[in-house]
């Protein structure tokens, strides 16, 4: 942890280049089943982005927030309305503005964090979750007065070229996720992240050392909801391909909370690991159910077991490794490459 503050080491650049080659060249060229793109890679990247948002507020700033899905909904519907109502607005522009709208809402709902913490704050953020979904649901303008309740998302068009095939959409998301992840890593390593962590570790001490609680907390809320908003817009436009408030209910918020905690609080790569795990584990269970037990186990039991496993893992990680899977990964790496580092 202490080796790389602010500056990047050689291995950081190598890792980055390898991941980029893998993401932009190898995966699009080798993976040729749409299933992998639409059901795994696309939701994984979207949810990982939302989890980074959750990391900013929870892992780095230590504020127990439980409303990620609400901000995702805000971002998704903002993006839908921007593309619908503003002529000639490019997709990335709409995406950025929807993130900003989500950030503005995040600041408002982050205000209670100045006075409260822990479970009190959790309740305050639950208010945002229920309130945002209710507003979108009850005011027809947000849904363009569509009575069916399910609105089809517009096609993604960039410079006149529609990006609608799974591979195209994957690449669009990958660009956004890459840019924002690098941004998040920079913020976390820079003075912004130092302030967040100071507030997390002991807010009274941080304040007495001159860190403005007001600025730091609200900034964290804004950035966190910006990430969630953009993630929500991408999630709706590429994975769901429709916009319905129900898709962003409290269950999704819990899911993102789990991704964040199991992945490893206060880590960016943990967001990707956690999102991948929570997303892939049910797929694996279903696969086992279908192919090993040949459907002998009821699907509802499988999904119930999946909940049990997530819950047990949560408890086990809290007891044995509160820093989550990212730390497990670090430990394994250290054990494997111990000699190399010396």
């Amino acid at each position: 942890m202490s080796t790389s503050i602010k500056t990047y080491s050689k291995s950081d650049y190598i890792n980055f280049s390898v991941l980029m080659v893998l993401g932009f060249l190898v995966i699009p060229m080798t993976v040729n089943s749409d299933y992998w793109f639409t059901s795994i890679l696309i939701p994984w990247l979207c949810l990982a982005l939302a989890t980074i948002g959750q990391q900013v507020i929870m892992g780095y700033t230590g504020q127990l927030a439980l409303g990620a899905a609400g901000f995702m909904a805000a971002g998704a519907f903002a993006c839908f309305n921007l593309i619908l109502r503003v002529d000639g607005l490019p997709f990335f522009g709409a995406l950025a503005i929807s993130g900003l709208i989500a950030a503005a809402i995040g600041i408002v709902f982050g205000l209670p964090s100045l006075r409260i913490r822990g479970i009190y704050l959790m309740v305050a953020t639950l208010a945002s979750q229920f309130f945002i979904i209710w507003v979108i649901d009850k005011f027809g303008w947000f849904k363009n007065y569509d009575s069916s309740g399910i609105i089809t998302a517009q096609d993604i068009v960039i410079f006149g070229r529609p990006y609608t095939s799974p591979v195209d959409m994957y690449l669009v998301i990958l660009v956004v996720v890459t840019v924002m992840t690098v941004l998040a890593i920079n913020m976390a390593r820079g003075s912004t992240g130092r302030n967040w962590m100071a507030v997390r570790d002991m807010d009274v001490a941080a304040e007495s050392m001159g860190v403005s609680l007001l600025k730091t907390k609200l900034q964290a809320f804004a950035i966190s909801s910006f990430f969630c908003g953009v993630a929500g817009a991408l999630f709706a436009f590429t994975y769901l391909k429709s916009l319905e408030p129900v898709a962003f209910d409290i269950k999704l918020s819990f899911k993102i909370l789990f991704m964040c905690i199991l992945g490893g609080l206060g880590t960016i790569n943990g967001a990707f690991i956690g999102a991948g795990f929570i997303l892939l584990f049910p797929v694996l269970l279903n696969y086992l159910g279908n192919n090993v037990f040949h459907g002998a186990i009821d699907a509802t039991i499988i999904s119930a077991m999946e909940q049990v496993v997530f819950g047990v893992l949560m408890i086990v990680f809290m007891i044995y490794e509160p820093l989550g899977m990212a730390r497990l990964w670090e430990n394994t790496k250290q054990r494997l490459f111990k000699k190399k580092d010396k």
Partner: protein
Amino acid sequence: MGSEILFFFEVVVGGLLAGTMYSLVALGFVLIYKASATFNFAQGAMVFFAVLSFVGFMELGLPFFLAFIVTIGLMVIVGLSTERLVIRPLMNQSEDTLLMATIGLGYVLEGLAQAAWGVEVRRLDLGIPDFPIMFIADAIGIFISALDLTAGAVAAFMVISLAVLFTQTKIGLGLRAVADDPGAASSIGIPLKHIMLLVWSAAGVVALVAGCLWGARAGVQFALVDLALKALPVLIIGGFSSIPGAIVGGLIIGSTEKVLEVYIGPFFGGAIEGWAPYVLAVFFLLKRPEGLFGEKIIRRV
């Protein structure tokens, strides 16, 4: 009395009585918080788990009272394993860590209940009709459901007995000592394990009672977990460590959400109930972060 005023009273009374159902969930929460300073996020899941098992045992053919007793036994086992497997290994961890572990516990209980008993909605008939009592309606013109009235009575009974337990008995004294400082309490010979076991089992029983009343009203289904989440604003208004606070908080939440829903809801297409309690709680938090009856929180560096 004009019929409008009468209607207003009816709404308020209905809300107050429905609020006691939130209070019952909140009560289990307070119980654990008072004795171990743990925010037990799994209380809602315990309610669901308890009542689903209760209905499940009855479906297996057990008579009402036997099923009730077996479920109580089951909840004691749940409490015992929770204490042993979750709370004890995390004894000296921060509040937030414990809170996250109980979120995990909630997931485990929800999953286990559904794996064991299935996911379909079940009816629970307590023999108490959810209809207005006619002689009250005839006498003063207000419609009050018999189930609501029972819930109110049950809540009152539980609050009184828990208050007596906490303030008048030696066990209660031990409980309060443990909540204050577990280390000091155990060093003067208060059996920490027994206290924790007792509290978690008691919370399980409270969860079962709350679950029965909720189940009789809304059906035994997964949505109970979301309903139980509303115990959180109740706790915030009442204060986490106060048993009367849980009741008063429930009454405030219950009546306010009903009045808002009936008088303001129609202008916005309804369903204000979904968020009103949380927003109300936020305003309370800004004014009185420790709740109406809670102890003032002092934080030191």
